[in-house]
């Protein structure tokens, strides 16, 4: 199991991009949940199947200090992206929280079927703008608008 290594890698890169400690931890958590879901559900708890992780920074612009795009691909069974939904939280029970956590942490979560086999998950999060001055304090990162959140996975 190399989940801890994947978490550390993602957390380190997120930190270099400019996310604070808490956001780095949450992004690592989202990736951990995504990988765990693939192993548990996609691969039927087989721990020796391939998973690819790609990490790209979103470049800073005049309106944004950038962000991170994490692409996770597997060779697991394909499912319709529209069926990837989180469960209702009011029903407190063990399990089924992973997708909710991913959606809660990331700004955008998108699922796609890969060309021949497996799924592709694309996670995006913007780095919040530091509180440089009161004048800037209410500005929001706009590289990916929060309104465009695609909450499509369970």
């Amino acid at each position, binding site marked *: *199991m190399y*989940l*801890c290594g994947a*978490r550390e890698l993602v957390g380190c890169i997120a930190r270099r991009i400019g996310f604070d*400690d*808490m956001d780095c*931890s*949450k992004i*690592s*958590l989202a990736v*951990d*949940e995504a990988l*765990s879901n693939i*192993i*548990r559900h996609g691969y039927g*708890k087989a*721990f020796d199947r391939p998973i690819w992780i790609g990490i790209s920074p979103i470049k800073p612009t005049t309106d944004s200090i950038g962000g991170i795009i994490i692409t996770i691909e597997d060779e697991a069974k394909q499912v319709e992206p529209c069926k990837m939904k989180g469960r209702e*939280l009011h029903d*407190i*029970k*063990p*399990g089924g*929280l*992973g997708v*909710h*956590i991913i959606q*809660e*942490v990331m700004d955008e979560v998108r699922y796609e079927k890969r060309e021949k086999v497996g799924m592709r998950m694309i996670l995006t999060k913007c780095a919040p703008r530091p509180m440089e001055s009161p004048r800037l304090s209410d500005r929001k990162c706009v590289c990916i608008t929060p309104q465009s959140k695609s909450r499509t996975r369970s």
Partner: protein
Amino acid sequence: MAHSNPTYIQIDRPEQGVVVLSPSADIDMSRSPELRAILRQEMGGGVHKMVVDLEEVHYMDSSGLATLVEAMRNASKTSTQLVICNMNQKVNAIFEIARLDSFFSIVGTRDEAISL
């Protein structure tokens, strides 16, 4: 999959009927089965309070959370009080994201948990 090191959870019995479990590593899908097994093993049988001390846990994923939710349900069935203590901010964040921070009894220190 159980983690290869079976000793990452320390078990203390500071008082009659009180058990304190102290995991000494991050709790993810590779380690939560062992935590689940020990929680089940220690629950009931004259134990009226179970404390989970998370001081050494710097990271927990939803499998750890699910394990604690299951333990809380089992605790209710066996009239055992389950208390969590020494939770750091990052671990607390996952409880908040899952809206479970008010579902558990969470206190600051081990002493508080034992005397609760």
